[in-house]
């Protein structure tokens, strides 16, 4: 519910993404081959793949490989010069693989886990991962192979972007309360690094289903609450608990997803699938152009827009700038 972008929004963003992709790839004379690994039926992943394919140059190769649950390649869908065949299984019509810088892109954590365990020399882009997905993959021994360039594109924007948004909405409120679990520690560390000048209160709950006591401590000491993209942010019940606590106490709740804003959060800086597709393609190009330090390049999603819930703002008695203005402020900060 929280990760599925609305189709209406996607339709609007599709044109924007297409224009941005055309401008970005116009400078790249050569056309690189792209192999996309998809291991699940996540709607956001499918949308991501669709936008990725639409932004693919017509002369370059685009191969979609659907992986089963165990990671072995099951079938391939190749799209290329014949646009009419796009989205159709074309195993028998396998085009010739271009020799120049082929890139493999795994969408989602399941595909990413399969991809890093597969042999190969191609630069590997792991897209649509959450921060916790990345942390779980990072411990895998196959992740840091020296013979392969790996890029990771996180689907949420960076905590610093969210703090910029909070600062834009509540310029006088510096006390930010965060509920976290033990698994959220990398995100908390990132938040702490970004929250210079903020009065950050982080309370750790035993798990995502036991938030009441933590919230009871946290709410009185906070001007706003923040839901991290961790186990709490991924759990509908836990997110609703935080949202209800904030609504009851009259505190605005910020998050990292569109769904959270729709369900009661005040605002969130989010990235769109089109934006992510463009960023993933650019990341692949970066990896193809040369080795990166440490072998792994990690990027957070670039925020493309700001979502604000006007009902919540009205309920809290806040007068907020328009979304466009906020988006400009958030994107300008980068």
């Amino acid at each position, binding site marked *: 519910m929280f990760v599925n972008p609305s189709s209406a929004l996607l339709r609007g963003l599709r044109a924007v993404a297409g224009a941005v992709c055309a401008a970005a790839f116009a400078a790249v004379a050569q056309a690189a081959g792209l192999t996309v690994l998809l291991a699940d039926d996540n709607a956001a992943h499918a949308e991501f793949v669709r936008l990725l394919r639409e932004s693919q140059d017509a002369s370059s190769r685009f191969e979609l490989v659907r992986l089963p649950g165990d990671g072995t390649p099951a079938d391939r869908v190749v799209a290329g010069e014949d646009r009419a065949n796009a989205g159709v299984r074309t195993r028998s019509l396998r085009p010739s693989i271009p020799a120049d810088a082929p890139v493999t892109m795994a969408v989602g954590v399941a595909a990413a886990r399969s991809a890093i365990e597969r042999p190969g020399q191609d630069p590997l882009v792991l897209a649509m991962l959450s921060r916790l997905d990345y942390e779980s993959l990072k411990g895998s021994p196959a992740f840091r192979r020296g013979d392969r360039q790996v890029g990771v594109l996180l689907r949420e924007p960076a905590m610093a972007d969210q703090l910029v948004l909070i600062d834009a909405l509540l310029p006088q409120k510096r006390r930010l309360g965060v509920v976290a679990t033990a698994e959220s520690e990398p995100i908390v560390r990132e938040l702490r690094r970004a929250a210079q000048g903020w009065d950050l209160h982080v309370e750790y709950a035993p798990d995502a289903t036991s938030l009441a006591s933590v919230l009871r401590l946290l*709410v*009185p000491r906070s001007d706003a609450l923040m839901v991290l993209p961790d186990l709490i942010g991924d759990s509908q019940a836990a997110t609703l608990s935080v949202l*209800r606590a904030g609504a009851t106490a009259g505190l605005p709740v910020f998050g990292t997803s569109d769904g959270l804003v729709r369900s*009661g959060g005040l605002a969130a800086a989010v990235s769109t699938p089109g934006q992510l597709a463009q960023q993933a393609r650019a990341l692949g190009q970066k990896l193809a152009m040369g080795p990166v330090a440490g072998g792994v390049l990690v990027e957070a999603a670039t925020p493309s827009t700001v979502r604000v819930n006007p009902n919540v703002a009205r309920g809290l008695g806040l007068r907020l700038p328009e979304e466009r203005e906020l988006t400009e402020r958030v994107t300008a900060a980068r």
Partner: protein
Amino acid sequence: MIAPTHDLVVHTPARPSEPSADGRAVVVGGSLQRDLFRLGVVPCAAVALALTAWFTHSRLDTLEAAFNAEGQAVARQVAAMSDLSLYAGDLPALQNVANAALRGGQVTRVEISNSAGVFVTAGSKAAPIGQLRMFTAPVTLREASKATAFAPEGATAAGDKPIGLVQAFRDTTGYARERTRSLMAGIGIAMVALIAAWAWVRHTARTVAQPLRRISRTVAALEAGRFDARCNVVTRAGKAPADGEDEGRRGQHELANLAHDINRLAERLQRNRQQSDQQVREATAVALQRMAEAEQAALSRARFLAAASHDLRQPLHAMGLFIDGLLPTASEAQRPAVLRLQEGAEFMGVLLDDLLEISRLDAQVLTPAIANVSLAMLFDQLGAQHGARAAASQVRLAWRDRGLAVRSDPALLLRIIGNLVGNAITHSGSDGTVLVAARRRGGKVRIEVRDNGVGIAPIHQARIFEEFYQVANTERDRRQGFGLGLAICARIAALLGTRIALRSALQCGSAFSLELPEADARDVQRPVAEPVASSPLAGLRCMVVDDDPAILDATRALLTQWDCEVECVASGSEATRRLADPETRLDVLLCDLQLADAEDGMAVIEAARRLQPEALAVLVSGATGPESLQRLRQGGVTLLTKPVAPAKLRALLSTRRAGRTPS
């Protein structure tokens, strides 16, 4: 007996002749069965109706409460589910919540709204608003979250403030149907209970009333005299309580005991009835025997009186005639003795007349000739009769008729009043006063004869109407009468339909009175005064028929003295022959009733009427028997009763002579 004897009696008040113990009548109505029926059905009906009403009311209240609670619960549930979505303005989520609420089927429409313009509705709007009932629940975050502790210190309690409203609409069609079904079920249960109570009470009432009705019928039969009636009421075991089983009776049905007691009472009554019937039969036989004896004695007495009267009259009649014949020719020395003989014969004649009168009255051969009688005329006659005697006794007579008239027999009434006036004159001392007054009294006329004489002691008052009873005449002085006057008066008064009343006290005089129906004085027929001629009887042709030679001789001598032409005949046949002789012209025929050789004087009278129609036929008889008197009365003959006073005979012949003169 107070209770009604039949169940169909509408109102049977207690009989006034049989008052209840406390003196007041107990009024009952209807029947015992109906009373028992009411006694049972009314409480049952009341309880059944009350319980049914209460249960139905509770059931309807429960239905109402359940319906409302369900609708309210749905509204609150929707409010609880939609709090955060409404807070966030999440319309799809709210729509989902509303649709989810509809899936339960309890509500037909759900509306979620807030003041910010959020309005989500789900469900059909086809149902008319009249069939829908609305339930509202405010949407509050506090209620939804139950996390009031999240509110910061000093913060306003945002959770208390509603952030929106949920309206749930329930269709009342099913609820109304259920209400109707419950109501009908309640009414049905009540009806079943009433019918069951009615049937049971009717059975019970009949069980109680039937033996009572049977007992009542038995008592009524006993009252009507049918002592063989019995109550056939026994206990369920079919055993009636035996006599003396008082211990056993306690455990038995009271009605069976009552029926048993009534049966015993009926047996006793029957036994007593049989005994009394036997006694009555015996007493009746004795009474009949005595009555027959009394009748026989009365007949014997009447026969004795008749025979004695007749046998005494014959010689007395002859004796009177001889004395009258002797008196003119008697010497001075013989004359006092002859006068005493004449006086004694007259007294004996009067005595025999009185006895004959009583005999006639007892025989009831007299039929009063009722007519309007003017009391003024009556009193005038009485005054003429008694004036001389009263003057001789120095008694003043006063008459107050007041112009009244009565309906009565004038001759009999004259006899009564005259006897009473005569007695009053006798018993009033010198300078006494006798008042005869009439006054109107309640449609009747009361005639009173009052004197201021010595009066009658109470001890004698009850007996003075008996025969031969006289007050203060112990020596039986016949000049004071024989004591038969009042007895005759009492009998005549009874014949006239009245009675003689007496009020008297010693030294205060006496008052005899009788009441008669009043008549209009204007309707009184004036009698034509007959001129009384005192012309001489010389030349009057007379025939005397008698089988007694002494009477024939005496009568011849008397009539000869009166210068009459006399022809004496000793038998009826001879007399008839003489009457048939064309040469014979008679003015008077004097014939005895009982002639020799069983000849009847009536036949001679009949022959004289036929052969000598101008002659005066007079029957002379001493017979006083009721049968003879009745026969003579029916024959319509002129009768002279022996002994015939010479003056009476002379007066009769004088009227004949006077009657012949004009012709």
